[in-house]
């Protein structure tokens, strides 16, 4: 190729081409696309809850308690005459907030720690690995319950507790990735070229582990969503009367024979919300990691 020809090729960088390839691979997976659509739907529902919900989620109406679904109340009313549909819509806020922010918190803490262990090795690696082992010895929910008990019951604290409880698992993933990537030829080449640690980590290691991290994030989010519901169900998360799917389920326990639908709807919301993120995560894993392709 002559110089003129090189300059004449359309300005499509290899990175953009790869991105388009990944997008096309993703779009070929109907379940993953469905997961993305539903997940985005839940996020929008949480953000625009006041617009979507027909009623104030905490407005009680003692003339209309435990009503069956009707056009007036799409999913009926609860034991205090509150509109169940509006409470589900507002409940998405707690779930999405806990799911997304606890995952971001976990990544922000776990990635630097994992990088330090996997990239620098030395004395810090065994120390971090051992501490990770210790934390992994505590079952996720027991750890989250314990942390929530220490921090006190509230949505913010439940989010922090779930985020911290997810850290050890993510540290292990980040460490493993860093460990593998530092042996790659392009990292060795960068070292030979005299690149510093900051450049190697920032330009080579971190960008190459984003795929794995995105996949991990999409499986951590549903775990945290279910975790938030579980904590709120146990009284360690969102406090009534703030609407949360876990709180709604806990309240519904007293009406299992009179109004089982009160237990049905919030559970379906938790289920579809976490299923959508799980489908998305599975799809992304197939797309970003060709090794696991069927």
């Amino acid at each position, binding site marked *: 190729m002559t110089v003129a020809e090189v300059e004449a090729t359309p300005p499509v960088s290899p990175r953009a081409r790869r991105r388009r390839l990944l997008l096309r691979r993703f779009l070929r997976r109907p*379940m993953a696309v469905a997961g993305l659509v539903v997940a985005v739907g839940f996020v929008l529902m949480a953000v625009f809850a006041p617009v979507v919900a027909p009623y104030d989620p905490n407005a009680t109406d003692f003339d209309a308690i435990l009503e069956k679904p009707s056009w007036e109340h799409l999913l009926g009313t609860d034991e205090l005459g509150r509109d169940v549909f509006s409470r589900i819509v507002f409940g998405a806020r707690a779930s999405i907030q806990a799911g997304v922010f606890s995952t971001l918190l976990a990544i922000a803490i776990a990635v630097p720690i994992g990088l330090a262990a996997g990239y620098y090795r030395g004395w810090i690696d065994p120390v971090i690995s*051992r*501490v990770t*082992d*210790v*934390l*992994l*010895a*505590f*079952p*996720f*929910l*027991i750890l989250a*319950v*314990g942390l929530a*008990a*220490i921090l*006190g019951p509230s949505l913010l604290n439940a989010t922090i507790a779930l985020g911290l409880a997810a850290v050890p698992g993510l540290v292990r993933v980040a460490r493993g990735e860093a460990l593998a990537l530092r042996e790659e030829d392009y990292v060795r080449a960068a070292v030979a070229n005299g690149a510093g640690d900051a450049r190697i980590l920032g330009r080579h290691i971190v960008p190459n582990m984003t795929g794995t991290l995105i996949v991990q994030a999409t499986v951590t989010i*549903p775990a945290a969503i*279910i975790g938030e*519901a*579980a904590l709120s*169900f*146990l*009284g*360690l998360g969102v406090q009534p009367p703030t609407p949360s799917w876990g709180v709604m*389920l806990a309240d*519904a*326990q007293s009406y*299992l*024979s009179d109004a*089982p639908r009160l*237990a*049905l709807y*919030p*559970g379906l919301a*938790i*289920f579809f919300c*976490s*299923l959508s993120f*799980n*489908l998305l995560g*599975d799809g992304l894993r197939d797309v970003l990691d060709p090794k*696991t392709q*069927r």
Partner: protein
Amino acid sequence: MGGFLLRKAGAALIVIFLASVLVFLGVRALPGDPALALGAESRDPEVLAAVREKYGLDQPVPVQYAKWAWNALQGDLGVDSRQLPVSETIVSRIPVTLELAVLSLLIGMVIGIPAGVIAAVRRGKASDYASTSVALVGLSLPNFWFGLMLIIVFAVNLNWLPAGGYVPFSEDPVENLKHMLLPAIVLGTGLSAVLMRQMRSSMLDSLSADYVRTARAKGLSERRVVGVHALRNSLITVTTVIGLQLGALISGAVITETIFGIAGFGRLTVDAVNQRDYALLQGVVLVAAVGYVVVNFAVDIAYSLLNPRIRVSGRPA
């Protein structure tokens, strides 16, 4: 093998030691003054001082830890806020949760392993998609909600099974199983989803391995190739996953026992948190962590016996 055992045992002991320190400090980070709870909420400074002295709360934290750890080693976890010995309470609750865990594990394996094998053998076909999708549904199902739904259908509407409670196996085996069935299904289905996915992926690995090709080339029937050669090696990998799932089972027991009103280990954890019972919480969390470490140590040993390569290279890739 001796060196490997020693190394693994050493690592397990270190983890248990650090876990005990963490539990001890973590419980001390809980809000609220333990002396206040132990002294029947009396605010009389003299009573509080006496309580602090009695329980050693006036001593430096490392001394408190050493005493607690030394007693714990001898099986004494102190007394809870009702003056009942913590170790005895825990020991009395463990069989209940153990039974639940074993039943769930059985249900999980009976569903998960065959489903995983079928999905792998019929990879890319309808049955593969079906079982993979069902597994994903199982993973997204919040177990406490699933439990409530089972109660509504089988206890409230059909009246086939009790909605909750517990009857010891020694008293009435049939009633015991009736009470345990729904909770075990709740925990078992979640587990079966995890096992199915693991089984499918390790079967896929095995089926493309050289020894399977050799077995096929020898002219063995497909049944034998899948059933003996591939399955046996995949089961080894799944053993480790079952060990790791113990944590999930304990987490699940916390919620499931709360819903079904079973006075087991999980319920005890929730009660300890809600009652701010320091000694009890400390004991419960410590026992959970030690149990997890010990089971995984046993799994590591079993795994290395089944797969000698591990002894040399450490963990499998």
